[in-house]
């Protein structure tokens, strides 16, 4: 059983976001493993375990050969990683990202590909289905439960009303929602072992991807302006003295909702 997990390395969401001169997100600082993807990594490790053996490979596209997020996932237990870095990728959109990741995944020849439903910084929620379309694979998004059973994958997929049971032949691309599993904390041993696990660093040329097709060159979109959104006016903030509930009642009364 060979599971590939797409893991995005992102600027720490706890830090305020910054834009570059060309209005793309500043990704120059240290990047961390997107929390959304820690669920995919955990799910992959559990599926391989249940299958009675196999391996988890990480695939990531990030600027500047950044590996700190990958090391976190390797410390959790993934065996190795493929990292695509290329200056030509700055300004890449979701479709470009999917083209690059698909080329890398193809090399790994997985039985299953996992990703998160959406990343924390880009949250387009389209990359996993785009990867599947490029590779000609079935895709199931919004998975809240995943079971592998021989050559098929069974998924509970969230819907507006509840959930659907979906089955598909493998290989397939499955995107998981946050909270599906409890991501493990890397052990000390895991952290030490991660330092020597292989990270295959590739450029676009290594992958045989034409740089003119991806990155801002291929994006098909251009940011024309970034404006401040109209701010909400500051309201009244009061300290509860035991009677603050009457303030709420008066406020709701004024809105005629009670």
């Amino acid at each position, binding site marked *: 059983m060979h599971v590939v997990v797409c893991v995005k390395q992102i600027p720490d969401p706890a830090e305020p976001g910054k834009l570059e001169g060309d209005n793309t997100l500043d990704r120059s600082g240290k990047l961390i493993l997107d929390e959304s993807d820690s669920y995919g990594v955990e799910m992959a490790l559990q599926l391989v375990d249940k299958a009675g053996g196999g391996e988890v490979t990480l695939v990531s596209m990030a600027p500047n050969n950044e590996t700190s997020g990958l090391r976190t996932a390797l410390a959790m237990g993934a065996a190795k990683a493929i990292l695509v870095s290329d200056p030509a990728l700055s300004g890449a959109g979701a479709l470009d990202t999917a083209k690059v990741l698909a080329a890398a995944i193809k090399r790994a020849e997985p039985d299953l590909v996992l990703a998160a439903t959406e990343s924390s910084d880009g949250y387009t929620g389209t990359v996993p289905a785009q990867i599947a379309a490029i590779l000609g694979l079935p895709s199931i998004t919004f998975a809240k439960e995943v079971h592998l059973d021989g050559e098929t994958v069974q998924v509970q997929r969230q819907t507006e009303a509840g959930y659907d049971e979906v089955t598909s032949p493998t290989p397939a691309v499955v995107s998981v929602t946050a909270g599906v599993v409890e991501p493990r904390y890397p052990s000390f041993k895991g952290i030490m072992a991660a330092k020597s696990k292989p990270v295959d660093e590739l450029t676009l040329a290594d992958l045989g991807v034409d740089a003119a097709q991806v990155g801002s060159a291929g994006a098909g979109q251009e940011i024309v302006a970034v404006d401040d959104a109209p701010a909400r006016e500051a309201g009244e903030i009061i300290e*509860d003295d035991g009677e603050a509930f009457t303030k709420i009642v008066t406020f709701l009364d004024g809105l005629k909702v009670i």
Partner: protein
Amino acid sequence: MALNRIWVYAEATEGKVSPLSLELLAKARTLGGTVEAVYAGADADAVATTLGAHGATKVHSTGDLSGSLAGVPVASAIAKQVADGNGPDLIMFGTTYDGRDIAARLSVAVDKPVITNNVDISAEGDDVVVTEPVFGGTKLVRTKFTGGAPYIALFRPKSFVAEESGGAAAEVASIEVTDAGQAKVTNRHVEEASGPKLDEAAVVVSGGRGLGEKDNYQLIEDLAKLLKAAPGASRAIVDAGWVPYSYQVGQTGKVVKPTVSIAAGISGATQHLVGMKGSKNIVAINKDPEAPIFSVADLGIVGDVHKVLPKLIEALKAR
């Protein structure tokens, strides 16, 4: 004109067209050009009346797809129309489970980008520009399509106001699905929710991790009942299993824009705020005076939910 033909992907449950689809149709009508719908379901004839009344002149129907996930078949049908020269200049999707899947697959099939999370669109001369909020909605990014038609865009719920156009029932035409896809839906589960729907209610009462434990969510349910409100939740307590996912408000949950939202024990993370800061009025209760939720509150109570909520509930009961 840049946009001669606009398609809106329409969704419906049990014959009722979703509010989001109607919102998109209303916006599409302001962009100039012909507005048509794409629909996947056995009941295109039944929804054609509503779609027509909201401005669609035609419904391109794939027919019954039950048993399949929508992404592959619907994208294949639209891509075929594009390949045959019958495609739209712009296709608008709602940010829904199926909308994202179809738009993603379509973007690969026609090799054009899909721009996501939009709250607005405008056609300015030959330029088609979409607007997306970032950093928790504090900044608005405007992006122009540069790769030629078809432009593919996903829109967040409640970005536009649905409005009837008084049009006649839309003409139904079928479009051919060239790939049914390999993923099959074998069973559907509906989680019943009582009371008003979260994204339609006039009052929303949401609870977060500040409630302390699962049983305390009852305070939210009780308050909601008294206010005829829909109960909502932050993702933290959905992930913790206190309430079903359908309660979640925020970026990955529902977008609410009620007359008033009450947030109890919710910190106000950016991903939560984007789902509720469009509420006309916001009341927040949080024991931390620095909680970001207070930056959007019209009335903020710095206090303990376990003290404020029971008193509020008693006071409302007494009325």
